[in-house]
């Protein structure tokens, strides 16, 4: 019987190539999309789970508000690790990372520097903490002595080949010498350590041994003993404020108590987060590597489910649409003695066949689309060909989808009553109309929702790109690592400024695009011991050309000026800082602040200017208080160019670089690109939205198309009679289309409020955001309606131009 079912299924599929294609194609698109998203989500959820004791490892976080803004740090003070280890019997092991960022590296016998993008100081317990084995070197001694380092396989290969790595001597940033004492395997792509290539011994880093609870720079990881519960150390950890931090604060604010500290609206809360939660649930200052947001995982999960459900709905609609043609067959079979179960089985075999075909097509599509998807999602996902579980799940998924989407048509068709269908007439009373209409409403509601989402995300991105930043990022070239030029740094700058197409240039380590940040707390000259006067600000070291090169607007006071002798003790602050102080910009001028609180003889900075607020953090965040002061030290140089001179400029500047810093890598980037990278997550979300919206609309259209065909066929007789009675093609097409438009209008009404709510929720993450205009909903509705009209009218017109004699002859 099964063979018979298969044979008949195959023939009836072959007989309707167009419908079979629509069916297979629609389902395959849904499955391929679902498959890709599932692979992505699986990868995201697997982060940091490969470490042996991942479930026992936690990171210590700090939530701090002291003056200024409340901030959430992924880093804690240097003595945190030791204190935790000493104070809690639950803690088995602690380890710290002190991120060093990019570093220039050269072998001691070489002149040429090579850049490593991510380096860090690490405690020697790091191997045991994460169960990392050395390929080469001795785990017992690695990272124990000062000025030793361990590198990844890839880094070792890059510099000298793995075999020769141990014992090599490296010069870092042209100053410190390190000896290689170990090589480890490359760190997994789905781990928080993925970007690190070099781990230097913490033992050689002085700052790590200073007991200073005032600065937060160390990523601190703790491993609990197997029986311990992390909740048990939460309260004692919070008590660290009174135990360790307040005594430190008392050095510059004598007599301050924990109660006073809190009464002034300040807080300092230490907490922990499980290692495996970091990637999706942590978005703090100084994360080790870019994390994702669990929200985007939810959004993608929804999209995947939408897509698959849409495809199934589509399949149901198209299958029932064909049922008219099959009604006679069902009738005959029933009179020949077939029972319902047999028929259901037969139709399920048919949908199983389609579903299986779709699955093959989907896997093929996924394989082809994977590189593009990886590009889009910034991932390195591959299809786990060797994993039987994957294939099993895939097959299971295919079967479930086949059964799920096949069941409705099967039950629907097997219910046909032979006496009725064999009369050869009207499919109009075959029933199921409400369900089919409901399915169409469902499909279109989702599509309209996705259109709204796409429009809003796109608009917000555009808003960000065009927003008044408060500085000019265009035509600005940033050259990295200018400190390698050494003493000649300022003459390098002057040389560059002489080039014809260079408008201006400035040396600094701090830029409004992602760059260094440095936070300090200032106290005013008067009332320094009153903690509510404390002013927490970004403090950026800049030069005289900084404000003019990047086009900041001075709204009160003046810019730094070489003619003023005292400007080395002057600062310029931004509007937010003025607002925190609580005076007008003009009143702020002349006030003196010190970052040297608690000292006998503090030095003061005088406010000489107020700069208009500019965005130096993503638009998700508010603009913080900030101050600029003059500094000789600089990591980078920003060069403002005439428009359209990039290529020339780069080669000319590189020429100067090579004469002044021979052997040093010439690294540069455009500020605009760096700015855009800040919004990569949103860009990615937007692209994913656009792609999957398009897919879901496509699927919804397939469904509508099928249903229109079904409807037209169902009403063949009615159309024939109407035509005989003198109805025009236009009238009939209108009549056939208008029913569908009603459905589309209902779906629009359903999805507008949902879309409005959901997208406002999304926008809430941005401190600077658009208002959703009514035109968004108008446009979404218009799009949905026009797509629906385009889809349906083909079938309607086709049905309307048929010669009535033909359609009535069957009666």
């Amino acid at each position, binding site marked *: 019987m099964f063979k018979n079912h298969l044979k008949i299924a195959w023939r009836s599929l072959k007989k309707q190539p167009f419908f079979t294609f629509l069916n297979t194609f629609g389902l395959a698109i849904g499955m391929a999309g679902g498959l890709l998203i599932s692979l992505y989500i699986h990868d995201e959820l697997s982060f940091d789970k490969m470490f042996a004791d991942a479930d026992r490892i936690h990171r210590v976080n700090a939530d701090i508000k002291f003056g200024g803004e409340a901030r959430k740090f992924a880093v804690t003070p240097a003595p945190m690790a030791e204190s935790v280890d000493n104070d809690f019997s639950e803690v088995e092991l602690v380890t710290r990372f002190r991120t060093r960022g990019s570093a220039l590296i050269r072998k001691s016998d070489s002149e040429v520097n090579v850049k490593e993008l991510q380096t860090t100081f690490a405690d020697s317990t790091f191997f045991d903490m994460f169960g990392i084995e050395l390929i080469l070197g001795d785990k017992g001694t690695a990272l124990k002595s000062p000025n030793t380092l361990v590198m990844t396989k890839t880094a070792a290969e890059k510099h000298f080949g793995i075999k020769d790595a141990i014992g090599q001597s490296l010069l870092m940033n042209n100053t410190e010498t390190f000896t290689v004492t170990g090589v480890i395997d490359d760190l997994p792509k789905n781990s928080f350590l993925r970007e690190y290539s070099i781990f230097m011994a913490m033992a050689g880093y002085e700052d790590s041994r200073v007991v200073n609870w005032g600065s937060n720079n160390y990523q601190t990881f703790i491993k609990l003993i197997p029986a311990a519960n992390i909740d048990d150390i939460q309260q004692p950890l919070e008590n660290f404020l009174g135990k360790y931090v307040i005594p430190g604060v008392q050095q510059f604010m004598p007599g301050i108590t924990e109660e006073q500290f809190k009464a002034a609206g300040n807080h300092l809360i230490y907490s922990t987060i499980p290692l495996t939660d970091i990637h999706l649930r942590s978005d703090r200052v100084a994360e080790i590597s870019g994390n994702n947001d669990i929200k985007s995982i939810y959004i993608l999960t929804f999209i995947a489910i939408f897509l698959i459900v849409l495809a199934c709905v589509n399949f149901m609609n198209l299958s029932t649409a064909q049922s008219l043609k099959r009604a006679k067959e069902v009738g005959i079979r029933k*009179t020949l003695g077939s029972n319902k179960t047999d028929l259901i089985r037969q139709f399920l075999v048919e949908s199983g066949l389609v579903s299986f075909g779709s699955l093959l097509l989907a896997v093929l599509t996924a394989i082809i689309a994977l590189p593009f998807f990886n590009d889009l999602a910034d991932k390195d996902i591959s299809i786990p060909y060797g994993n039987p579980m994957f294939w099993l799940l895939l097959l299971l998924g295919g079967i479930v989808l086949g059964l799920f989407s096949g069941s409705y048509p099967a039950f629907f068709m097997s219910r046909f009553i032979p006496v009725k269908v064999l009369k050869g007439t009207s499919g109009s009373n075959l029933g199921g109309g409400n369900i089919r209409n409901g399915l169409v409403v469902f499909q279109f509601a989702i599509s309209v929702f996705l259109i709204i989402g796409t429009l809003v995300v796109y608009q917000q991105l555009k808003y960000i790109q065009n927003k008044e930043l408060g500085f000019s990022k265009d035509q600005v070239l940033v050259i990295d690592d200018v400190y390698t030029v050494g003493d000649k740094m300022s003459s390098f700058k002057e040389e560059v400024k002489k080039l014809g197409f260079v408008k201006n240039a400035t040396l600094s380590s701090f830029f409004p695009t992602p760059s260094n940040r440095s936070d300090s707390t200032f106290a005013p000259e008067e009332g320094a011991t009153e903690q509510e006067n404390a002013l927490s600000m970004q403090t950026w070291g800049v030069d005289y050309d900084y404000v003019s090169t990047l086009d900041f607007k001075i709204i009160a006071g003046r810019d730094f000026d070489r003619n003023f002798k005292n400007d080395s003790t002057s600062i310029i602050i931004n509007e937010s800082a003025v607002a925190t102080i609580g005076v007008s910009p003009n009143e702020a001028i002349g006030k003196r602040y010190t970052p040297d609180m608690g000292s006998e003889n503090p030095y003061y900075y005088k406010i000489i200017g107020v700069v208009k607020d500019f965005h130096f953090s993503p638009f998700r965040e508010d603009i913080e208080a900030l101050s600029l002061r003059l500094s000789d030290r600089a990591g980078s140089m920003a060069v403002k160019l005439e428009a359209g001179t990039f290529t020339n400029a780069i080669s000319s500047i590189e020429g100067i670089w090579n004469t002044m810093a021979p052997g040093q890598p010439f690294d540069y980037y455009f500020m605009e690109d760096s700015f855009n990278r800040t919004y990569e997550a949103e860009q990615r979300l937007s692209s994913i939205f656009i792609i999957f919206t398009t897919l879901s609309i496509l699927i919804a259209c397939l469904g509508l198309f099928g249903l229109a065909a079904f409807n037209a066929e169902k009403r063949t007789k009615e159309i024939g009679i109407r035509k005989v009675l003198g109805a025009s093609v236009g009238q009939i097409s209108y009549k056939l289309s208008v029913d569908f438009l009603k459905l589309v209008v209902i779906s629009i009404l359903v999805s507008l409020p949902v879309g409005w709510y959901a997208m406002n929720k999304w926008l809430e993450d941005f401190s600077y955001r658009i208002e959703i205009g009514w035109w968004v909903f108008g446009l979404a509705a218009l799009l949905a309606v026009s797509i629906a009209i385009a889809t349906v009218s083909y079938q309607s017109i086709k049905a309307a131009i048929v010669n009535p004699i033909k359609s009535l002859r069957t009666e």
Partner: protein
Amino acid sequence: MLLQLKNIFKWVNSGGQRVFLLKDINLDIEEGEFISVMGPSGSGKSTLLNVIGMLDNFDEGEYQFLDESVHALKEKKRANLYKEYIGFVFQSYHLLDDLTVKENLEMPLLYKKVKGSERKAMVADMLDRFNIVGKKDLFPSQLSGGQQQLVGVARALISNPKLILADEPTGNLNSQQSEEIMDLFKQLNEEGVTIIQVTHSEQNAAYGSRIINLLDGRMI
């Protein structure tokens, strides 16, 4: 006695009024009869045939088929009953377009779960008997109307039914084809198969042993 209808009523409600499709039908049919049901359009001929064939329900009355009370049977039992004893022949043949002649013949046997080898033998037998061996791999659309109806009859006959119900079996055929089919019925009847046919043609009705006239759902 093959079947017995007692006070059968069937109606539909239309515009608040009860319209009778069958009204007080009393009919006894013995095995081996050849009955022609006649009457004008809308007199209830096809309805009566469907009721007898258990494809359609009735609202009142009793129906005995062999030893079973059809009116008291559950849907499934009833289906089994007609699967076992009744074969249908339709005016528009109702062959399955996707299946070849051979496969069409095989279909009822599949539903009766007849074994493969036996099935083949029975199909071959039937093809032989109706002289259509040469056409066994053709699809219905490749046959003439008469040939299609021949296959239709063969299909109705293949599971050895006691009763064949034919709803205007020659309605779509020309006179020569009609005659062939009627001769075939006659011959089957002589072999012991009970036949009930609906027909408009006096000529065809004459093949039968008894004529039942219907008017507005009533036997006259």
